[in-house]
């Protein structure tokens, strides 16, 4: 460790102003602070500075995603061998899924970080850590058989158009991971429909319907049991199937205080409420399924825990968070049930509310100011 520190200190001057590699300063800085705690201190006054910086926050999110990722890898293998009618051991299933998912993760990080570094160099600011999480989330919300070139285009689009044009991490309006998925969804709908999903290589490119697809065509006999959906033994995108694995991640996020429980809770409440409303209306079979089914089907739980809570794109005020979350839940279920063109509404619901989050905040703050102004007048 000491040797590494000494080496970095030795080559440091070359990357600073006037050095040989002056242009690569931000790249160097990124690697240095990745290896060691940044040595930045405040200059004035006596601010206490916790070393809880963006890097640590991002790493916690990555850790929280791991259960869903590991389960997703296993489930990919499980569904594959199940459809072939073979029975193999746990590790074989896991290994198959691991080899299937790993290239997606590698492509995601190489492409995304490459763009981040390039932009940081060109603009002369530090490399932001925001992509660490985005790069982990993207593999979880795409089907396991996504062609890698499609993924590359989607990531370039999401990082450049979704994030860098607004000024990089922290300035983006839309969640970058969901932007990538939305791009794929609209650009290559035949690969991303949400109602069918790839399961196995052999057997003539067999693809099975997800529960969402079954529900949409009224195929309820095919429905997996609620416990299967809850534990995640169903076809779907890599990370979205297992609600229990997602909930483990949710506990980690809430315990460390990185995600807002207000958003998370109100998304679930909103989805459940909308389910109840549809039960009451009851116009067709899809409307009559128990409301909790909506919460464990498809990407609802994943979106609620990892996507809607993104602190950059969510509402910032406390009241705003409730409104934001409940609307996401309601709109997601609404799209699922009412619009047959979009079997999965979670992505579109979150992106839509991302756009509205600043507006919600604005009105919450305005209302607060008005309320407090009234107080002054009464006294005077």
């Amino acid at each position, binding site marked *: 460790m000491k040797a590494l520190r000494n080496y970095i200190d030795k080559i440091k001057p070359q990357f600073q102003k006037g050095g040989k590699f002056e242009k690569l300063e931000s790249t160097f800085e990124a690697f240095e602070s990745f290896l060691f705690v940044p040595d930045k201190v405040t200059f004035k006054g006596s601010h206490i500075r916790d070393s809880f910086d963006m890097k640590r926050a991002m790493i916690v999110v990555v850790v929280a995603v791991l259960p869903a990722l590991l389960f997703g890898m296993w489930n990919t293998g499980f569904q594959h061998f199940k459809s072939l009618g073979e029975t193999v051991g746990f590790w074989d299933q896991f290994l198959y899924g691991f080899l299937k998912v790993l290239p997606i993760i590698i492509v995601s990080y190489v492409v995304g970080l490459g763009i981040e570094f390039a932009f940081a160099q060109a603009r002369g600011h530090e490399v932001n850590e925001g992509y660490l999480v985005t790069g982990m989330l993207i593999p979880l919300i795409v089907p396991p058989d996504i*062609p890698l*070139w*499609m993924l590359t*285009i989607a990531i370039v689009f999401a990082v450049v*158009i979704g994030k860098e*044009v607004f000024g990089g991490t922290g300035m983006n309006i839309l969640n970058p991971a969901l932007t990538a998925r939305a*791009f794929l969804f*609209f*650009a*290559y*709908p*035949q*690969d991303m429909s949400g109602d069918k999903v790839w399961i196995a290589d052999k057997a003539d490119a067999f693809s099975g319907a997800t529960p969402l697809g079954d529900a949409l065509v009224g195929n309820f006999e095919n429905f997996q049991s609620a416990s299967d959906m809850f534990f995640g033994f169903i076809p779907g995108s890599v990370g979205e199937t297992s609600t229990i694995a997602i909930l483990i991640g949710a506990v980690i996020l809430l315990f460390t205080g990185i995600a807002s429980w207000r958003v998370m809770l109100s998304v679930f409440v909103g989805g459940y409420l909308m389910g109840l409303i549809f039960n009451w209306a009851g116009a067709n079979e899809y409307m009559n399924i128990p409301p909790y089914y909506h919460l464990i089907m498809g990407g609802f739980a994943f979106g609620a825990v990892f996507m809607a809570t993104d602190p950059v794109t969510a509402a910032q005020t406390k009241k705003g968070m409730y409104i934001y979350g409940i609307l996401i839940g309601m709109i997601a279920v609404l799209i699922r049930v009412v619009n047959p063109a979009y079997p999965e509404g979670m992505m579109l619901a979150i992106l839509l509310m991302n756009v509205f989050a600043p507006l919600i905040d604005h009105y919450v703050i305005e209302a607060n100011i008005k309320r407090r102004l009234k107080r002054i007048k009464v006294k005077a």
Partner: protein
Amino acid sequence: MSEEVKQREPLFSPKNKKLIFNPLSRENPITVQVLGICSALAVTAKLEPAFVMSLSVLVVLAAANVIISLLRNTIPTRIRIIVQLVIIASLVILVDQVLKAFAYDVSKQLSVFVGLIITNCIIMGRLEAFAMGNKPWPAFLDGIGNALGYGWILLVVAFFRELLGSGTIWNYPVMENLGLYDFGYKNNGFMILPPMALIVVGIIIWIQRSRDKELVEEK
């Protein structure tokens, strides 16, 4: 006395040249003034309709500019907008009829958007801002310049949207002839949708402003 006669300005004096070339870049109607965006989104899914659209706007804008410039001293200020609209509408009807007669397929593709040239903000904008206060020749050049500035953006957007969205250039199947489909390449359906036109225009604006810093607004 005869020596004091003002020398006639040459037809393509530097000032007049500016009228044509400025709208191509620094005063581009789409990327700088952000006018006429709606038609830029609607007709740029393929090159052919985009080209015909640009041509129609060129004819209408140049003719309307000249006519308004000729009438500029007789139009009462209070009803000038109505007069401008009548002239533009008549010209658009002419263009529409010509298209229907000689290029029926394209005219069908463009459908309502030929008629909507009437409401194209670029045309009204140029009539108000330029033709009302200038002589016919400069007004003509200004019309040509702005229509070209509008047209080349339309063609660039349409080129990328057609190439990536349908895999063709002017209906010639480029991607198929390159054999890319055999490698698993697929057309990008997002490119056909109108939002992507907005994003492509946005990218052009981005490139233009990072090359020409004077266009960047002060904070």
